[in-house]
């Protein structure tokens, strides 16, 4: 093997996702390719319906309706994923109010992955992961409704980390949180990445969050990648594709004159 695929932690080639049949057929992801080096953070940016979360769900094994080549840590992936895959790859979801079982304590939420994978010394692991996500032992026997949104998202990150994965898939991990809590969670994710050498794929509609977290990004519209770019180029406000440029303009705030120049990128080229 040669080329970037040999070194990449995640390599996606010609990923297509199609839902439904006949008149209801939806081509949700079209020929998406990207590679993520170990220890990097890759951003997937787009508006609602762009297919960014669908790419993540195909990567995570939550969605079997995909075709193409997905290679993770050198292993070509099939539709069905085994336990070993989930030991390597974990996911954090957008809504911390929906992703934690409401009748399970934090302790039970964190215990479940350990039990499934038969890991030793659960006591120590739970205490350690609570410490690492900045919650501490006093949160161990609380229920999700006794926690704030930011604390819940920390539990969700802890649940993903407790298996000591090498890759975290992050689906809008802070978009349900207040900005002050968002800052804390983003800092936590950055620190964990440095300490553990994790590789992240971050899906977000927020260009500022992506610019802050990522090394490289792909901009998606209507299921296809319209542009792949280095974060430095985004920071200099110099993307090439007009769609990306419009997203950058829009994320800088309200500008009446600029809005009148907005184009509709509705149709697929």
């Amino acid at each position, binding site marked *: 093997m040669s080329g970037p695929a040999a070194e990449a932690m995640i390599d996606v080639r010609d990923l297509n996702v199609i839902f439904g049949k006949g008149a209801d057929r939806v081509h949700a992801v079209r020929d998406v390719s990207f590679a993520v080096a170990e220890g990097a953070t890759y951003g997937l940016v787009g*508006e609602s319906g762009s297919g960014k979360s669908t790419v993540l769900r195909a990567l995570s094994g939550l969605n079997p309706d995909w075709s193409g080549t997905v290679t993770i840590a050198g292993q070509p992936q099939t539709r069905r994923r085994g336990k070993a895959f989930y030991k390597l790859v974990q996911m954090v979801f957008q809504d911390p109010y929906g992703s934690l079982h409401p009748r399970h304590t934090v302790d039970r939420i964190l215990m479940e992955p350990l039990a499934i994978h038969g890991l030793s010394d659960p006591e120590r692991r739970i205490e350690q992961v609570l410490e690492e996500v900045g919650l501490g032992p006093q949160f161990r026997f609380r229920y999700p409704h006794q926690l704030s949104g930011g604390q819940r998202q920390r539990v969700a990150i802890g649940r993903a980390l407790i298996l000591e994965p090498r890759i975290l898939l992050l689906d809008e991990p802070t978009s349900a949180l207040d900005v002050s809590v968002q*800052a804390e969670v983003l*800092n936590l994710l950055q620190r964990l990445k440095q300490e553990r050498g994790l590789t992240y794929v971050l899906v977000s509609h927020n260009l*500022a*969050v992506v*610019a802050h*977290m990522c090394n490289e990004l792909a901009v998606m519209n209507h299921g296809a990648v319209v542009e792949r770019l280095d974060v430095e180029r985004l920071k200099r406000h110099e993307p090439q594709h007009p769609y990306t440029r419009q997203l950058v303009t829009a994320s*800088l*705030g*309200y500008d009446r004159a600029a809005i009148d120049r907005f184009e509709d990128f509705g149709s697929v080229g």
Partner: protein
Amino acid sequence: MAAPLLTVEDLRVDFPTRKGLVQAVRGISFSLGREKLGIVGESGSGKSMTGRSILRLVSAPGQVTAKRLEFDGIDLQRASEAQMRDIRGERISMVMQDPKFSLNPVMRVGEQIAEAYRTHQKVPRDEARRRALDMLAAVRIRDPERVYRAYPHEVSGGMGQRIMIAMMLIPDPDLLIADEPTSALDVTVQLQVLAILDDLVTQRGMGLIFISHDLNLVASFCDRVVIMYAGRIMEICDAKNLAAAQHPYTRGLLSCLPKIDGDGSDLPVLRRDPAWLEHGL
């Protein structure tokens, strides 16, 4: 300066609970002219309760009190329920955050918009229908005829929100209270919807209270900004001077936002000072 459209003085919203009194809004005062006033705060800051208490929509056991709550010469605290029904919708209307819970699920959306018009204007059905179609076009819905016939579950969240805005604007209100009207929308659509509201303020002299958690958006869109924290107003400033705001809470909120051209280093974390609760405006 002309008399303000809305004057709020020492507004309080309390909820008695088993664990004691929860003060959602703790004595705030501001006034509004024919301008865009932003109310910014994090969850639980009391910004939505402020909007709802102006329309007397805070339901029991919530208690609203104020030294003064006056809209265009009308004392909103003393107004009868019948007077309030005339005010709601026609003079002051409110766009809520989630269209899914605000639209009637078993009625075509176009008919709901036309109904909002006919509630306040004695006009024939045909004219109400035509006005509703015009309004749908004004909020940038591409195929108004088709959307008019659609039921709420058949439209996307973004379109639902634009339908809500059309419904709230069709009676031609003097004051629009918009509670996070665009936070569910994609950023480009969000700005296009704000442009519609902006034009109504500048062309028709409507007053707008724009409730949001998005500091950057409010700073670039509104004329003045009220910053709320824990039921109190921390500071009121001109939107264009927000970057130079003095209050540590405002500064903290601004600095913890990641920036598109930032350097990727750790974001400053907001430190909350209990003294802020004692010294609101």
